[in-house]
Each structure stands twice: as structure tokens, then as C-alpha cells.
């Protein structure tokens, strides 16, 4: 069995070396593997079908970026779409209402509601300095109310005193009263686990909702959940009106496809993640993290980076054209500096310029300090867009501002500008040479582009 999607797609595209736009047969074949990967990650079948259809539409005709295989390109498109569907941006709890603000916690048995209620309470208390009251409405599971009380003691959050025999709706009302009287900001109402097909218990939770009018109704769901996630999420959404999802046990080794299923069928944002057994182990939801996990690819980030780098290679080609036309501004210099830094020196940069292979080693030996490159970048970052394009506008007051902004002296700014002018001059020559069809400037000329050894910037 394949460990991850990258491998799967690698096999699909093994024989395929041709570059260019993705055609339908590549995409169809790749998406068959994507489908299996998603199903093995427990994404619900109906959701998988829609997803695959959408990705197919997006992917066909998409240009394959150079140096990325078609398979990797498909993964990138799949990953991007997955992140988008999982809800692009992080959404936190929406608690803007007159205090005490009730938050209703609902879900199946064993999904982790009580622990989650305490975790959320602790998070609100420590991060937002809210005064929180925990109330357990679980009168069914043995010792459930006591469990919440103990968690309250551990987190030093008040819990509503237990009154034996009181029914959930009445407990909820009592919690709201206690909340008003006690000046609480948030009331966490932890309900009993219930099956979404249990009509009596679903009616009960609806009655609780109507009694307290909660600002948030959080569905707590286990990230180990399989295909049934859609039924659960949809039923709770339809019956109670879920406003957000908290996904628990994300520290397990499940792929967590349930996240996508639930998000897709309810449209409700996934707001929080339970990331461990300890009560401070709660995090806001990051779609990208879950996306690469669903696809089973630890290396997706690296892959997307690679694709981006490739895009920068394309930038280099654009730059080459610019140079040939004799246009070279500080934006270009900045992007060169960035690339140099990433590649650990001048070597990479020189490799991208036309016809200067000879100079490479000499330059590598020059041993340029990356801190220097960073400072130079900082100087350019402190300039306005206009200044970067029209260096001529830089008067002394502007230079003073730039120096202050980047934490260097005016002399450093001047030095950078001098280098830029030399470089731009060189570029013009290169361009002329290029137009004449000559091989390019000699190594000696290029060395003039470099900052002088030992001098220049403070290190």
C-alpha cells in the first residue's frame, strides 16, 4: 500500500516526462489516486466526489511549472483546493454578545465534549481574561457532572454546583442566572453525548438552545471519525444549528478526513483543535496543516516551496529580458539579494545570468556574508515603491529616513546605491553585448559588481 499521495502520483507519472499543460488523461489518472487517498483519509465519499470534480475542472489546462512533475503539480492544485475548502482563514470563537455569553457544546458520546469545554474555558480565561463558568448538563452518563467539576478545579474555573435530579434545560437556565448574578463573561454549557438519530435527546438539546440562546453552538467531533461524519454533522447542524466545529484528538495518527467532510456538508468553520490530553492543549484551526495531513504528505510544504522557487526561476528569466532591455531597478536588486541569500551565495545568482559560468568559482571564493545581504535587503525594504523604481528621487532627507528605517547609517545607504549604479551600468553593457550576440562580460567585469572585500557594511 502506498504511504502517501506523492508516491502514488509518482507511480502514475513515472513514464510521463513531457512538460506543458496538464491534459485530461493525466488529470483523470492522477485524480483516481487522489480519490483513493482521500477515502483512505476518511473523507466522506460524497465529499470526495465533489472535490475531485472541482479539482479536475481546475487542473485541466493548468500550466505545469518547469522543474515540477505533472504529478507534483496535481498535488499542488489538490492541496490548494483542499486548504480553500477547509476554510482558508482561521476563525476563532464569536463571543461578541452581552455577558454572560452562553456557549453550547454538543456532540456524540465519547467525542471529547467535557474535556473540550474545560479546555475552551481555560483558553478564554488565560488568553482573554474572561470570567468563565462551566456547567455540565449531562445527567445521563455516570459521574459526567463530577468529571467537569474536577476539570474546573484543575483549571481553577468555577463550575455550577451540581443539583442531583435537575434536568438539563433547568440546569442551563440556572447556569445563566448564576452567570448574570456572578458577573461571568462566558458560560460553557457541556451537554450529554447523544446520537444524532436519537430524536428525544436531539429535542432536548434544541430545548436547551431555545432556553439560553447561545452565541456559539460548537459541535465537538473526533478526528478519528469515518464516513459517518457527514451524517453526524449534518444532523446536528439541521437540528440544533451548529455555528462551529471543534475537532478533537488531532494528536492521533488519523488523517482527519472528517474535517473536510464536516466542513463541506455544514459549511460551518472548524474553529478549534484538541491537540493533546492536557487541558492547555488546544489550538486554533490551521487549514493548511490539516490539508497536508489528509493527503498524507509530510513533504507537501517542501513541494509547494519547490514550485514557488521554480516560479522565481521564471522571474529570473524575466529579469534576463529586463537586463537585455537595459531596465534594472532596485526591486530587481532586492529580488536578486533574496535569491542569493536563499541559495547561500552568489553562485546561484550568477548561474542564472547568461553566459558567465567562468566567474562562478571566483565569486564563490569571495565568501559573501549573508548578514550583509540581509542588511542590503532591509535598506531596499525601507524604500517606497517609487524610490525603488526611480533612484533619482532619493535626496538626503529620504536617505535619512531609509537609514533609520533599516537600522543602518546613511553611508551604508549610499554604498548600496553606488553598487546599484555600478550594477545597473554593467547590466546595460551586458544587455548591449547580449543584443550583439556576444557571450557576455568577462569575470573581471562581474567582480566589479560585488561589494568590495572587507569594506562596505558593518558586519
Amino acid at each position, binding site marked *: 500500500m502506498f504511504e502517501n499521495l506523492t508516491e502514488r502520483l509518482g507511480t502514475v507519472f513515472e513514464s510521463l516526462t513531457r512538460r506543458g499543460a496538464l491534459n485530461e488523461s493525466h488529470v483523470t489518472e492522477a485524480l483516481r489516486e487522489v480519490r483513493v487517498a482521500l477515502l483512505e483519509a*476518511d473523507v466522506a465519499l460524497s465529499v470526495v466526489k465533489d472535490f475531485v470534480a472541482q479539482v479536475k475542472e481546475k487542473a485541466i489546462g493548468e500550466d505545469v511549472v518547469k522543474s515540477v512533475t505533472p504529478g507534483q503539480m496535481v498535488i499542488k492544485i489538490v492541496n490548494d483546493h483542499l486548504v480553500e475548502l477547509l476554510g482558508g482563514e482561521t476563525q476563532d470563537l464569536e463571543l461578541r454578545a452581552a455577558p454572560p455569553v452562553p456557549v453550547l457544546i454538543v456532540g456524540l458520546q465519547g*467525542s471529547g465534549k467535557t474535556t473540550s469545554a474545560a479546555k475552551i474555558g481555560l483558553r478564554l480565561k488565560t488568553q482573554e481574561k474572561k470570567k468563565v463558568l462551566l456547567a455540565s448538563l449531562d445527567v445521563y452518563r455516570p459521574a459526567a457532572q463530577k468529571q467537569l467539576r474536577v476539570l474546573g478545579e484543575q483549571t481553577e474555573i468555577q463550575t455550577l454546583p451540581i443539583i442531583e435530579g435537575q434536568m438539563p434545560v433547568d440546569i442551563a437556565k440556572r447556569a445563566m442566572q448564576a452567570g448574570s448574578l456572578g458577573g461571568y463573561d462566558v458560560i460553557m454549557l457541556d451537554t450529554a453525548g447523544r446520537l444524532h438519530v436519537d430524536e428525544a435527546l436531539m429535542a432536548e438539546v434544541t430545548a436547551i438552545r431555545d432556553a439560553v440562546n447561545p452565541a456559539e453552538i460548537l459541535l465537538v467531533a473526533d478526528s478519528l471519525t469515518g*464516513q459517518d461524519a457527514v451524517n453526524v454533522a449534518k444532523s446536528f447542524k439541521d437540528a440544533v444549528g451548529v455555528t462551529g466545529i471543534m475537532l478533537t484528538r488531532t494528536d492521533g495518527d488519523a488523517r482527519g478526513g472528517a474535517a473536510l467532510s464536516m466542513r463541506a456538508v455544514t459549511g460551518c468553520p472548524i474553529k478549534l483543535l484538541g491537540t493533546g490530553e492536557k487541558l492547555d492543549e488546544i489550538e486554533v484551526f490551521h487549514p493548511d496543516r490539516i490539508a497536508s495531513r489528509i493527503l498524507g504528505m509530510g513533504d507537501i510544504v517542501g513541494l509547494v516551496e519547490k514550485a514557488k522557487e521554480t516560479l522565481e526561476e521564471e522571474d529570473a528569466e524575466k529579469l534576463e529580458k529586463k537586463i537585455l532591455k537595459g531596465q534594472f531597478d532596485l526591486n530587481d536588486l532586492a529580488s536578486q539579494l533574496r535569491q542569493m541569500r536563499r541559495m547561500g551565495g552568489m553562485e546561484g545568482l550568477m548561474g542564472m545570468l547568461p553566459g558567465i559560468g567562468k566567474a562562478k568559482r571566483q565569486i564563490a571564493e569571495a565568501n559573501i556574508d549573508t548578514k550583509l545581504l540581509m542588511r542590503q535587503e532591509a535598506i531596499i525594504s525601507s524604500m517606497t515603491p517609487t524610490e525603488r523604481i526611480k533612484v533619482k528621487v532619493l535626496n538626503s532627507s529620504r536617505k535619512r529616513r531609509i537609514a533609520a528605517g533599516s537600522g543602518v547609517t546613511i553611508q551604508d545607504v549610499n554604498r548600496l546605491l553606488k553598487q546599484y549604479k555600478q550594477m545597473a551600468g554593467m547590466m546595460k553593457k551586458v544587455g548591449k553585448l547580449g543584443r550583439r550576440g556576444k557571450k557576455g562580460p568577462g569575470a573581471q567585469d562581474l567582480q566589479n559588481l560585488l561589494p568590495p572585500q572587507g569594506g562596505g557594511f558593518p558586519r
Partner: protein
Amino acid sequence: MAKANGERKRGFLSRLRKGLSRSAGSLTQGLGGVLTKRKLNDEALQDLEDILISADLGVETASAVTKTLAANRYNKQVDADEVKAVLADEIAARLAPVAIPFDFSGASKPHVVLVAGVNGTGKTTTIGKLANNLREEGKSVFIAASDTFRAAAIDQLKIWGDRAGATVISGNVGGDAAGLAFEALEKARAANADILLIDTAGRLQNKTDLMDELTKVVRVIGKLDATAPHSVLLVLDATTGQNAHSQVELFQKACNVTGLVMTKLDGTARGGVLVALASKFGLPVHAIGVGEAIEDLQAFDARSFARALVGLDANET
């Protein structure tokens, strides 16, 4: 633990059917839609496979099952009921070898049963129900409250113990789980108890330190009785998807699981992953949980399970 007498048997079947029928409802509709007056061609088989995937059988198993179906019936005109029956037979055939009831009749006294599983699968509840069934059989039952981690787990177990009439041995919250299991075994021995059920804290199978803790429980009780634990039950939640594979694999590694119990089959989750687990691991499936009441732990019957899974009457022939 199913009772032999007819009345109880019917009770079980109708309960299972009631539980599974809700989930089977959508499956049945799907099947009907796919197959009414159709040839069993590639398209129909693909649809069938999809439906099995929706029941958590997993891609591999679903495709294996449909392939077997195709081998016999390809391009034949089939109606929905016929296909359901064949599908149920195919699934039942895969499950039959693992449908093995609890067997605590070994020579050891007490027979030590370690109960493990991921958090929230229903270990404590299963122990409560199991203790009750054993008590009804006239056995004397001790329970070790070795879930010393989760808040109020001990209280929860004590309440179940009271309901079932079993003796609960408990220690302090945060105490050593293995030590408590050891103590409980000593006490159960001294009281000449028939069965000792050891409840453990829920743990995710990828947490190595927590799994080591479980191994330690096994090791420590082994000092008193080298053959203990005599049974190690892994409790699986029916709503769990393909992660159940990893759960079985890693729990087996840590504490040598001898059998499975699947809980929460009273919802819409169909527990189809059991079909895949049966062929992959071959571990006995002893019982299923079909509700929150104390009598809601029932013996696992392959045929009823399979028939209910595809939406057929579970006890018809």
C-alpha cells in the same frame, strides 16, 4: 454474552436490527437506486463499491467484495434484493471466522481481562455491561479502576460496579495504573473471584509513552500470574474510520490484543471497518455495543451483522 433462551435472542436481533436499520436505511436506498432492474455491469459495480466505502469498509476491502460479486454475477440482470443477499453473504463469509463469543472459562482464577482502547470509545461503559452479563451468569466479578488519569473515571466505574453488583478496586487519581491492577489482582485472588476486569485510561495509539504504560500493566500483573492477562480486549468505536487499522496494529503490539469489541452501533455508523479488520488481523470480534443501557452489550453474530449492514432483515433465513 448473548443469552441462549429464545426470548432474549429475539431481543438481541431486533435491537441490533433497530440499531443498524437506521444506518442501513441509506445503504438500502443506495442499493435500490443502483440496482433496480439493472445489469450488473462496471458502472453498477462501481456504484456498489462506493456504497460499501460509505460504510467504512475501506477502498481495498470494498473493491475486493465487489470483485467477488462480479466474478459470479457479471452482466446478469439482478434486482436489489438479490444483490443485497449476495453482498450480505459475502460480508458474512468474511466475518464468520472472527465471530467468537467471549470465553472466560479458562483454568485461571481469576480470569484477568484487560480492557484497552482510544479515548472515548466506551471502555468503561463496556466494562459495566460486561460485568453485568457476567454477574447474571453467576460469576463473581472484580473490576480494577486503572484509568487513574481521566477526571471522574473512577466514580463512573464505581457507579457501573454498583449497578452490576461487582467489586470495584480503586486508588487515587493520578496513581500508578499498573500498581493498581496488581493490587486488584491480589484482592480478587484473595476473594476467590472468577473474573477481574481491568479498566485502563484511553490512549491514542501513536503516543509511545502511554502505550508503554499499557505494556507495563501487562508486565506487572504478569508477576502475580504469568499467564495474565488471559484476555485483552480492544474497544473500537463504530464511528471510527480507517484509523481502526492503526489502532488494532499498535494496541496489538503494546499489549497483545486477543479480541475486539465494537461500540456505538446504535447510531448511523455501520462499523464496516470490521470487515477489513477481519481479513487483515483475524482477531475475534466478541461483542457489540448497541446502546447505553446495561443490557446493551450483545454477542457479535456475523450473519446478522452483515445482513443488517446491507439493510436486510437480520434474522430471516
